[in-house]
């Protein structure tokens, strides 16, 4: 009698000929997430099984698995030799001792003569005999005891089905570059895109000495938190002060944010291309702040050719906060350190910038020199969760 964990995959079955590729990617991601925990992972017809692990690691394995994209649900199960009496005994032992239940049997081993329905009835009978507080209800049940008898005469018995993170395995949907500010929105945006199988890279703009080491550490911690779901994130920390100085010197302060955002997009795109990313990701939500009006987005979007994914564009702030709480980035995001956007913040930023005016202003700046200068001094940090 061994404890095992059954992993069910999400949408992979939809993927036809690519199924193998998706499964391989997921298998790799699971192995990576379970790194450091001694266990054995094997794949078995539309599912994976984790076995041969120490009892004390059980909780940690489940917690890690639940964060991996592409996993639909996980079930702690007992693996035994498929002996019918033994199955009944174990089912009664591991299941709750009170409530309404039903038993479902899935039998791949055709050498066992008894029909699945009859096995289920026998197990149910046994459980009822064992506990007075149990009743059978095939439709409105509190829990379902599952018995899965495989061809190799092993049986898996479980009743819990813990929700997984859903989505697609990270890495099977290309790569994207997330603009990670340190606020509430961008980690949530990154999580949403990663959930669709995208491998994340991130870029953060650091305005030393206007922003602190602690602000930078906060962004690293945010990337590490998101990486629990997405897998490792390569974070590029770009020194941004020189660019802010140049804008401050040459351009009207009201345009500070618009011009800064255009630089951020340019740099993000160059870094993205150099890492093989096919898109940029931002946490923008329409109308949330001055730089996120439609007019501002038109102007900032204009400097890049890569598609920009904005998964939160239609979300309200409270919805984003709820998501941030769920993925455990919220408490980090609200730590009160300055980020580069609040440096040189004008009192009255332009809300509806016009592209032609902004382009005229930029003629006063040596854009190429500033962008390349910042990229040359970029620091790269691999953010890994476990």
């Amino acid at each position, binding site marked *: 009698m061994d404890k095992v964990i059954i992993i069910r995959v999400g949408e992979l079955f939809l993927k036809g000929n690519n199924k193998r590729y998706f499964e391989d990617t997921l298998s790799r991601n699971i192995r990576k997430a379970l790194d450091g925990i001694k266990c054995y992972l094997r794949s078995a017809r539309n599912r994976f099984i984790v076995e041969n692990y120490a009892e004390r690691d059980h909780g940690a394995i489940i917690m890690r698995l639940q964060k991996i994209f592409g996993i639909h649900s996980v079930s702690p199960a007992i693996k035994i030799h498929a002996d019918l009496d033994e199955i009944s005994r174990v089912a009664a032992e591991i299941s709750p001792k009170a409530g309404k239940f039903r038993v479902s049997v899935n039998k791949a081993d055709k050498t066992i003569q008894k029909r699945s329905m009859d096995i289920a009835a026998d197990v149910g009978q046994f459980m009822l005999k064992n506990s007075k507080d149990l009743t059978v209800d095939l439709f409105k049940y509190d829990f379902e005891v599952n018995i899965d008898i495989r061809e190799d005469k092993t049986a898996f018995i479980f009743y819990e089905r813990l929700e997984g993170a859903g989505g697609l395995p990270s890495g099977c949907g290309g790569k994207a570059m997330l603009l990670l500010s340190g606020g509430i929105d961008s980690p949530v945006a990154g999580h949403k895109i990663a959930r669709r199988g995208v491998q994340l890279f991130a870029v953060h703009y650091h305005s*030393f*000495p*206007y*922003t*602190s*080491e602690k602000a930078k550490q906060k962004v690293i911690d945010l990337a590490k938190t998101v990486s629990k779901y997405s897998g490792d994130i390569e974070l590029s920390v770009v020194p941004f002060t020189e660019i*802010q*100085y140049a804008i*401050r*010197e040459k351009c009207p302060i009201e345009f500070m944010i618009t011009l800064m955002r255009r630089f951020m997009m340019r740099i993000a795109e160059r870094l993205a291309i150099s890492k093989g990313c096919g898109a940029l990701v931002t946490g923008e939500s329409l109308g949330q702040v001055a730089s996120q009006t439609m007019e501002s987005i038109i102007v900032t979007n204009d400097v890049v050719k890569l598609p920009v994914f904005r998964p939160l564009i239609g979300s309200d702030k409270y919805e984003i906060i709820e998501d941030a709480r769920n993925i455990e980035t919220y408490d980090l995001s609200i*730590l*009160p*350190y*300055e980020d580069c956007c609040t440096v*040189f913040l004008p009192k009255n930023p332009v809300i509806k910038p016009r592209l032609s005016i902004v382009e005229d202003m930029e003629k006063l700046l040596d854009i190429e020199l500033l962008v390349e200068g910042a990229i040359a001094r970029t620091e790269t940090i691999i953010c890994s969760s476990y």
Partner: protein
Amino acid sequence: MIFFDNASTTKADPLCLDIIKKYCFDSYYNPSAQYHNSVEVGNDLKRARQNILRLLNGDGQFVFTSSGTESDNLALLGTPKKKGSRIIVSKAEHPSVMKVANELAQRGFELVLADVDGCGMVDFEKFKPLVTEDTALISVMHVNNETGGINDIKKLVSYAKSVNKRIIFHSDGVQALGKIKTDMAELGVDLYSVSAHKLHSIKGCGGLYVKKGVSVQPVIFGGGQEMGVRSSTENIPAIMCFEAVCNKILPSIDKYSSEINQLKQYIIDSLPQDGSVIKISCQGSPFILSLALRSVRGEVMLHALEKHGIMLATGSACSSSKPAKGWKTEYLPEEYKNGIIRLSFCHENDIPQAEYFINKLNLEYSELIKYAK
């Protein structure tokens, strides 16, 4: 590396190493246990307590705690007070007093804040009418942690006692111990908080002086250690280190402080004359110097200087993420209000470091001011 943040913590004196080793590996026994070895440790503890009391010239008890913060909590929460009675604390208190006082206000005590000047020193004339017959507790810090301003505790105590001799007077002496004279008999305080790691000992140890006849009720309950006032197995290695540094430093305060004063004066004299950087610190502890920068944020300067290996603070490290408190900026011209930096010294700092600091300060200031709003 230049460490000008000694008010937040200090480097431990190397003599701590042998003491930690002794009390962790040889005499590691619980002083409450029954066998000979632990009795010996208990005797060491008693000796350390008496020695610190002697160095403080105190008549009463010295309760070891885990920190200055715990000592302040014990002082404010543990003193018996009639329900609804008045508690006076100065507006410049550290959060470890201020937040406890606010908590007491929530519990139904009448909290009154004593006005301070730009150095955090209590305004005596404004203080006097606050002290009433039904005042139970007064807490005024000895040396202000942000400006180095020294309160005339002796004067405040004697006035308070003249109104009602049963008033309990507590002073937070965390920035005073080992920096200025801390003579309990002379100050006349009932309770006095200190912290070991501000004085080149290790973290995790503080203490509360309790004058003879003053009652303090426990805040932490358990095995009844520390005369029943503070249960917990005593942190013997840290306590013994604390005693050792007190032994070393307290008798030589005059020598230390005159050296530090020269350093402080050197920095003050070397400040640019154009008003770009002004000093806030008043007649006070030589160990703390607060400066205000015109139109440059203190936090930005802090990071800029970090690049040159200079570490300092923008205020009290315990609340460094919050804007400057009202009292500190009230008397400052508008353009200096966000520009406060705090330097705090110890005997390891010297004139060449001060010279280097001034150079880098001027250099960074001239850069940063270009882009100031």
